[in-house]
C-alpha cells in the first residue's frame, strides 16, 4: 500500500533581479514595491495606450517539475541529485513547509521532518527545557516526550549539563542533544535532510544505527544525502532528481549508478580540467561495454586513459586506476607496471580487467597519474575520481556457475577459481 503518492508535483519560485544571497526571491522592501507601483502608474498616465510591459526583472524557476511517484509503507528511500536538483525543495513540499505550485500529494500517516539539527533550540534555555521545546516542534506530544525523556538524555550523553543553558554547550554537545531528540521521534514517515553531516564520526554512526532501527520497525524514511555509502546502506529505493525532474526511481544501487553517470557526463560537458604543471588528462574511456554502461561477468573490459606529459620530469610518472563500488568505498587500485621515465608527449595507458573477476554491481573508475621520485614524497599530477562508470551484470547462463540459484552472490569479486574434488573413500 502506498503511503505517499505524488502526482504531477511542481514548485515554482520567482527569481527577482535584485537577489540577495541564496538566489531566491526573498522579501521585498515595501519601499521598492511602492516606488515600482508609482513608476508603473506614471508610465500608464504618460502612455495610456502602450501595452502593459511586464516586469522583466522577474524570472521563473521551476525547482520541481512533473514529479510522479509512489512510496510504499516501510520503504527507505534515498533522494540523490546534484546541488540545486530540487532535493530539499521536495522534502519541504512533502513536509508541508511550503506549498506546491502544481499537482497533488497524498500522505497517509504522521510525518516528522528533520531538515535541520536543533530547530527551535533557544540558547537561553537549559538542555532539559530545550528537549521539550524541540520535541514539540518536531511533532511530539508532551506525554511522549516525558515518556522518552530518560532515553533521550542517555542517548545524548549530556546528563551532567541538563540544566545548563545550551548557549554554554560546545557545538558537539549541542548537536548530540538535538539528534537525541530527533532520534526518538516515532512518526509513520520520517523525512531527513543532510543533517548527519555534522557531528563527530562516532556519534554519526550511532545515529545511523538508530535510523536503520527506525527503518526496520517498518517506518517509512525519506533521506537526502550526498554520501552514497550512507544512501546505499540505509535505503532500498532511490530517487534521482535532475534539475527538478525525476530522472530515476527504483533500486537504490541503480539510482546511485545513474547519479554517477549523470555527474560524469556533466564533468565532461563542463570541461573540468585535470592537470598539473607537468601533465594533463586528455580523456578516459571503457572499451568492451555492450550498451551504454553494461558488461557481463563473462566479458573482458579495457580501461583506457590518454594523457600528455608537458615537460621533462625527473621521476616516474605512473598511471593508476581506482575502482570504487556503488557505496563509494574502494574495490581496488592498480598501477601500471615497469614504468620508466617518460619524455614529453601524448600517451595512452590501458589496463585489462579480466573476465570473471568483478562481481555484479556498479563500479566507478578514478583515473590518476602519480609521479614517484627517487627521494622525497610522490606527487599526484591529476586524479579524476569519477571519470568513468560501468555496470557488471550476471546473464545467469550456464557459465555463471549458479546451479539454478537466482539470488545475489555477495562480494566485490566473483572469480571462478580452480577447484578439484577427489573422492577419498567410500
Amino acid at each position, binding site marked *: 500500500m502506498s503511503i505517499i503518492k505524488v502526482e504531477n508535483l*511542481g514548485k515554482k*519560485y520567482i527569481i527577482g533581479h535584485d537577489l540577495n544571497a541564496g538566489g*531566491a*526571491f*526573498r*522579501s*521585498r*522592501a*515595501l*519601499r521598492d*514595491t511602492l516606488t515600482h507601483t508609482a513608476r508603473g502608474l506614471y508610465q500608464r498616465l504618460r502612455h495610456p495606450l502602450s501595452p502593459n510591459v511586464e516586469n522583466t526583472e522577474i524570472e521563473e524557476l521551476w525547482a520541481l517539475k512533473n514529479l510522479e511517484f509512489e512510496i510504499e509503507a516501510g520503504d527507505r528511500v534515498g533522494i540523490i541529485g546534484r546541488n540545486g536538483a530540487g532535493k530539499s525543495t521536495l522534502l*519541504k*513540499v512533502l*513536509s*508541508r*513547509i*511550503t*506549498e*506546491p*505550485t*502544481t*499537482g*497533488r*500529494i*497524498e*500522505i*497517509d*500517516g*504522521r*510525518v516528522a*521532518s528533520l*531538515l*535541520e539539527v536543533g*530547530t*527551535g533550540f*533557544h540558547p*537561553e*534555555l537549559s538542555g532539559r*527545557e530545550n528537549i*521539550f*521545546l524541540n520535541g*514539540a*516542534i*518536531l511533532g511530539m*506530544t*508532551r506525554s511522549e516526550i516525558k515518556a522518552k525523556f530518560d532515553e533521550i538524555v542517555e542517548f545524548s550523553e549530556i546528563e551532567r549539563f541538563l540544566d545548563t543553558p545550551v548557549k554554554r554547550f560546545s557545538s558537539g554537545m549541542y548537536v548530540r542533544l538535538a539528534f537525541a531528540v530527533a532520534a526518538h521521534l516515532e512518526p*509513520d514517515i520520517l523525512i531527513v535532510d543532510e543533517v548527519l553531516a555534522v557531528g563527530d564520526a562516532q556519534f554519526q554512526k550511532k545515529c545511523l544505527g538508530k535510523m536503520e532501527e527506525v527503518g526496520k520497525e517498518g517506518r517509512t524514511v525519506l533521506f537526502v544525502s550526498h554520501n552514497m555509502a550512507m544512501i546505499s546502506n540505509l535505503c532500498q529505493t532511490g530517487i534521482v532528481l535532475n534539475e527538478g525532474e525525476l530522472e530515476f526511481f527504483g533500486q537504490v544501487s541503480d539510482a546511485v549508478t545513474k547519479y554517477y553517470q549523470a555527474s560524469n557526463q556533466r564533468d565532461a560537458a563542463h570541461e573540468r580540467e585535470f592537470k598539473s604543471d607537468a601533465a594533463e588528462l586528455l580523456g578516459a574511456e571503457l572499451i568492451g561495454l555492450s550498451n551504454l554502461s553494461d558488461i557481463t561477468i563473462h566479458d573482458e573490459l579495457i580501461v583506457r586513459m590518454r594523457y600528455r606529459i608537458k615537460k621533462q620530469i625527473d621521476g616516474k610518472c605512473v598511471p593508476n586506476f581506482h575502482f570504487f563500488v556503488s557505496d563509494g568505498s574502494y574495490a581496488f587500485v592498480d598501477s601500471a607496471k615497469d614504468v620508466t621515465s617518460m619524455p614529453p608527449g601524448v600517451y595512452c595507458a590501458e589496463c585489462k580487467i579480466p573476465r570473471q573477476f568483478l562481481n555484479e554491481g556498479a563500479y566507478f573508475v578514478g583515473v590518476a597519474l602519480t609521479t614517484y621520485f627517487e627521494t622525497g614524497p610522490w606527487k599526484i599530477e591529476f586524479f579524476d575520481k569519477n571519470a568513468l562508470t560501468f555496470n557488471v551484470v550476471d546473464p545467469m547462463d550456464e557459465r555463471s556457475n549458479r546451479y539454478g540459484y537466482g539470488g545475489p552472490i555477495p562480494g566485490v569479486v566473483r572469480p571462478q577459481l580452480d577447484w578439484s574434488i577427489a573422492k577419498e573413500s567410500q
Partner: protein
Amino acid sequence: MSKLVIEAGKVNRRYFKDLMSYRELFLLLAWRDVLVRYKQTIIGVAWSVLRPLLTMIVFTIVFGRLAKMPSEGVAYPILVYAAMLPWQFFSNTVNEGGNSLISNASMISKVYFPRIIIPTTAMVVSLIDFLISILILSTLMVWYQHVPTWKVVFLPMFLGLAAIAALGITFLISALNVKYRDFRHVLPFIVQIGLYISPVGFSSTVVPEKWRLIYSLNPMVGVIDGFRWAIIGNTPMYWPGFWLSVGLALLLLVTGFGFFRRMEREFADVI
C-alpha cells in the same frame, strides 16, 4: 489517522483541526517566550514594571499638571494607569507579535506547524506583563485610597476586547512584515502614534460629544473607556462608541486572520 491531501492552490480544509492538534506547541512556545523574557529575572520584571510607570509619570505631569486636563474626580495617576494597562497589553502584543515571524524565521523555514501560533504566543507574554501591571495599579489605588466598585468584575470583558483588537492587527502586521521587511521600521512609529491618539494620557470626555462616535473608530478607545469605567467606577460609559469598537475589533480580527492565511502560504519561500 485520516489521509492528508496537499493540492496546489487548494485551501487546507483541516486548518482548524491542525490548530487544535498543535495546541501543545502553542503552549510550549508561549512558555518559552515567557521563560526567556524572565530568565534574566531582574531586567525582565523591572522592565515591564518601569516602562508603564515612567510613561504614567510623564503623562501625569504633562496632561495632569501642565495641561490641567480633567481627571474624572480621581487621582490623575490612577486615571492614566487604568488606561496604561490595556494600552501596554495592546502595544506589547502588536510590537512583539508583529516581529515574531521574523524572529522565528529558522523554525518557519524548517518545520511545519500552523504559522498563526507564532504571533499569537506574543499575546501570552503581554498577558503576564499585564498581570504584573495590575499589581502596580493595586498599589497605586491603595496609595491614593481609591476603592473600586462592583463594576471591576467586567474588566476581563474589556481585556478580551483588547485581545481581539490586538490579535487582528498583529496578524496583519506580522504577515506584512514577512513580505515587506522594512515594515519593521514603520511599526514602532505607528504604535507610538496610537499611544497619543488613544485616550491614554487624558480622559476621552475631553473629546466633544459630536466627535465621540468617530473617535471610537479606534477600537482602543472602547477598551480604555471600559477599563476606566470598571476601575474608577464613577466615570460615565459612552456605550454606542463601545459597541462600535467591538464591531471594529471583530472585523479587524476576521480580516487579519484571513489576510494572514492568504499570506501564510508563501512564508517559507519568502522569509
